[in-house]
């Protein structure tokens, strides 16, 4: 049991919830139903058990009344003095007078009993001093003087007033075999106080039949009347008549009802004892017939119960699922987070505990994400600062070459040239020193590049030329500092081809960007020897990789690309198109950064 409990503890939450829900609904309902049903059937049995004995008592009373009536029939003999006079005589007379007496008495019996008496009288017999007088409604067999008058020629002497002779006690049968009882009564000469003989009145048991059949309710119940020995006088099932109810002695000696407990199909038996005759009227009905109505109720309630259980199970599954599925989703999301994917959103949409949990989780993830980004950005800034620091220096080679050119100009005494170059160089130096600003207006950046290119042009004289086109108000747009210079340096370095004039074009314009917003494109184009295809692919690959990894020959390009990407995201940066001997075009894409706060979310970052 305990191991089962611990086992249960380890079940899934959903299973536990479902089992708990189902148990919580099913057990009370089934218990309630069971108790209600058993109470109901018991109370029905009790009601019937109380009601039927009363009916039986009533029926017995009716029967007793009829019997009281029937018992009076033999006394009708007394009303004829003539008949009593004949009965006072004995058999020792001439045949003719005996026959005359017989005629008289039979006639009287017919008149009084058969024609005038009750419908139920089948026949009447008077046995007196070895004489038999009779009158019957229907023919009979097996009844004669020898059957009833004792073999010694003596009359019957009944100890009690009257006796009921039951069908099994006599061989008398009427045609058609109607069930009957014989009321046997001693005829006493009331005046002389001697025996006159015995009268037997055969009475059809319809008086029982009517009362009993009335109660049998279309054959659902058995009713029978039995005497003291349990001999059945009348039974609703006619084949039982004259048999003995073997259980009669075991029945509780009460007027009331009891339930059999030892039979397959239990019965409710009610009995009532009739003092009048010592007979017992019994009523037996199968308990299941009583509870037929309740069986319907029971079946219906079982059906409802099943439906209910089904519905409650579905509801409990839904509820359990409702609780467990967000948890499952949470688990999955947590696994994703564990693998480093912070772009998750646990959308639960409810405001219950699970919703709160999800919200908390979401905010936790957001917090973590922010922390990470902050950390990352700090790192980026450091890198950028580093790259910037590298970029912001003026190439010593350039310095050297410029100074050399200045020196040569001094030698040639070209005073104007010297002044111009020193001025240009000085402005350049000042631009690079004034590196407090990470962002500068595009015009400043262009001026700086122009200074550089002007110096180179002075140096290379006719072999070199350049042009700058501005299609926008470059004074109003901003760009990170030193992004053009490395590209232009590269173009000068790689684009100079001896034997022809090297030309560099710088173009600043607004172009539609991939996100729909406009972007600024800074194009640097040369007519140099271009880049070989392999090298170009190589450069593209390097541009896509970590800018801090190594610093090789393409350092300038990479540096610029990395800085733009760090500042504005990967959608911005360099795009190089080139072919062998076709020159090279480097396009720098940056977002539109306007003066003031018009730069959208790409705020001006100040170092």
């Amino acid at each position, binding site marked *: 049991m305990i191991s089962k409990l611990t086992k249960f503890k380890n079940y899934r939450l959903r*299973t536990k919830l479902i089992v708990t829900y189902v148990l919580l609904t099913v057990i009370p309902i*089934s218990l309630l*139903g069971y108790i209600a049903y058993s109470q109901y059937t018991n109370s029905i049995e009790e009601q019937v058990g109380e009601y039927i004995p*009363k009916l039986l008592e009533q029926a017995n009373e009716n029967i007793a009344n009829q019997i009281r009536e029937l018992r009076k029939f033999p006394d009708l003999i007394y009303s004829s003095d003539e008949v009593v006079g004949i009965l006072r005589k004995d058999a020792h007379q001439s045949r003719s007078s005996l026959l005359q007496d017989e005629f008289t008495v039979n006639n009287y019996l017919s008149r009084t009993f058969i024609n005038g008496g009750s419908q139920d009288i089948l026949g009447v017999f008077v046995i007196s001093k070895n004489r038999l007088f009779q009158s019957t409604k229907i023919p009979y067999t097996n009844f004669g003087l020898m059957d009833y008058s004792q073999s010694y020629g003596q009359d019957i002497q009944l100890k009690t007033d009257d006796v009921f002779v039951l069908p099994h006690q006599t061989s008398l049968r009427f045609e058609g075999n109607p069930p009957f009882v014989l009321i046997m009564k001693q005829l006493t000469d009331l005046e002389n106080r001697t025996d006159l003989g015995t009268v037997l009145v055969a009475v059809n048991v319809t008086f029982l039949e009517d009362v009993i059949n009335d109660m049998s309710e279309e054959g659902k119940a058995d009713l029978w009347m039995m005497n003291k020995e349990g001999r059945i006088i009348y039974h609703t099932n006619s084949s039982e008549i004259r048999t003995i109810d073997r259980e009669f002695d075991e029945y509780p000696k009460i007027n*009331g009802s009891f339930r059999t407990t030892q039979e397959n199909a239990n019965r409710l038996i009610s009995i009532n004892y009739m003092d009048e005759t010592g007979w017992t009227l019994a009523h037996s009905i199968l308990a299941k017939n009583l509870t037929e109505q309740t069986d319907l109720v029971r079946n219906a*309630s079982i059906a409802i119960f099943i439906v209910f259980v089904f519905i409650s199970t579905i509801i409990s599954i839904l509820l359990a699922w409702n609780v467990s599925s967000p948890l499952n989703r949470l688990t999955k999301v947590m696994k994703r987070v564990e693998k480093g994917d912070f772009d998750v959103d646990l959308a639960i949409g409810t405001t219950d505990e699970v919703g709160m949990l999800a919200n908390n989780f979401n905010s936790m993830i957001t917090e973590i994400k922010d922390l990470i980004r902050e950390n990352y950005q700090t790192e980026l800034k450091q890198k950028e600062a580093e790259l910037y620091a590298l970029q912001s220096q003026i190439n010593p080679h350039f310095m050297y070459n410029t100074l050399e050119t200045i020196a040569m100009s001094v030698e040639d005494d070209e005073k104007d040239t010297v002044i111009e170059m020193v001025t240009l160089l000085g402005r350049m130096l000042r631009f690079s020193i004034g590196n407090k600003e990470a962002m500068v207006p595009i015009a400043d950046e262009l001026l700086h590049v122009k200074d550089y290119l002007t110096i180179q042009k002075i140096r290379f004289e006719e072999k070199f030329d350049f042009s700058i086109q501005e299609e926008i108000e470059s004074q109003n747009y901003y760009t990170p500092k030193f992004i053009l210079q490395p590209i232009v340096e590269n173009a000068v370095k790689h684009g100079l081809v001896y034997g022809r004039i090297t030309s560099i074009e710088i173009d600043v314009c607004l172009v539609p960007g991939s996100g729909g917003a406009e972007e600024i494109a800074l194009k640097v184009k040369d007519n140099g020897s271009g880049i070989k295809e392999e090298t170009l692919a190589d450069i593209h690959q390097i541009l896509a990789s970590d800018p801090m990894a190594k610093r090789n020959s393409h350092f300038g390009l990479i540096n610029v690309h990395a800085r733009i990407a760090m500042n504005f995201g990967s959608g911005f940066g360099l795009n190089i198109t080139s072919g062998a001997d076709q020159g090279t075009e480097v396009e720098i894409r940056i977002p539109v950064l306007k003066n003031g706060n018009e730069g959208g979310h790409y705020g001006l970052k100040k170092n």
Partner: protein
Amino acid sequence: MKLFFSLVCTLSLVSACAMPVADHGNYDVIYSIDEVVQEKADAKQAQQITIAVVPKVVNIPYFNAAEEGALEAAEDLGVNLLYEGPAFADAGQQILIIEELIEEEVDAIAVSANDPEELAPILLKAKEKGIHVITWDSDTVPEARDFFINMVDPETLGRHLMDTLAWNTDEKGEFAILTGALSAANLNEWLHWIKVHQKEYYPDMTLVEVSANDDDSQRAYASAKKLLEKYPDLKGIIGNSSVGPPAAAQAVKELGKEGEVAVVGLSSPNPMNEYLKDGSAQIITLWSPKKLGYLTVALTNNALKGIEPFDWQEIAKVGKIRMFNNTVIMGDPMDFTKENVDQYDF
């Protein structure tokens, strides 16, 4: 799986409703109105009952017949019977007998009183002792007894006796009445109704004398003779008590006046058999004294059991009785003539 299991569990629980609840014993009594008690103790109890029946007088056919009936009833009902009466119809003798019976602590005394007044104190004494006192045949004052068992309605009987005489005298002429004791209540009541009836319906008839004989046969015979001699035109004699008609018939026969003087009255068939057949008496009227004896014991026994008689009560081997004013009427009087007198044996 778990779900299915719990479903099965609960379903079996619900379907268990239909299963019978086991109980010990073969039968489980649900409801009982009362216990059935078969009557058995009755006979034993009856053994202890002693009923004393006191007639007016013993050794006359009428009271002998009553004794037979009483004995039959005692046997049928299983009670002890003491049948004790005085040799002469005398109230004093009866008082002595009743005193003895009180000492014997009988349960009930049924008495045919010779005098309604004189017997009252001793009967009241018996009542005080808790003895049931019933009168039969002849009543006492009502206070002294529980109820009175009368054979016939006195009015019916008195008027009927007058009728039987009138039938045999063509409704005219003189007649005399032989009565028993002048103090006997029942005789006087009948006498009263005979006179009433005669005055109402038979103006041509004259009652010349009422002669008392105290139920003594000898004295009755003597008075009858005297009457016949005294009134030569006498057309009829009514015997108002059972000794009257035989005495009158004997006197008529001896004087050869059969047919001339009609003899009717109250008497048993046996002593009158011969007279009826030879014409010295015409009709006698009576009830069955045997039946009366039987009824007396039966009703006394009933009273001891607490069953008071009621109107139209059916008494086994007797028939229906009437009851009013604390008086039981056994039935109607019977007439005996020479045609049917042989049927009766008392």
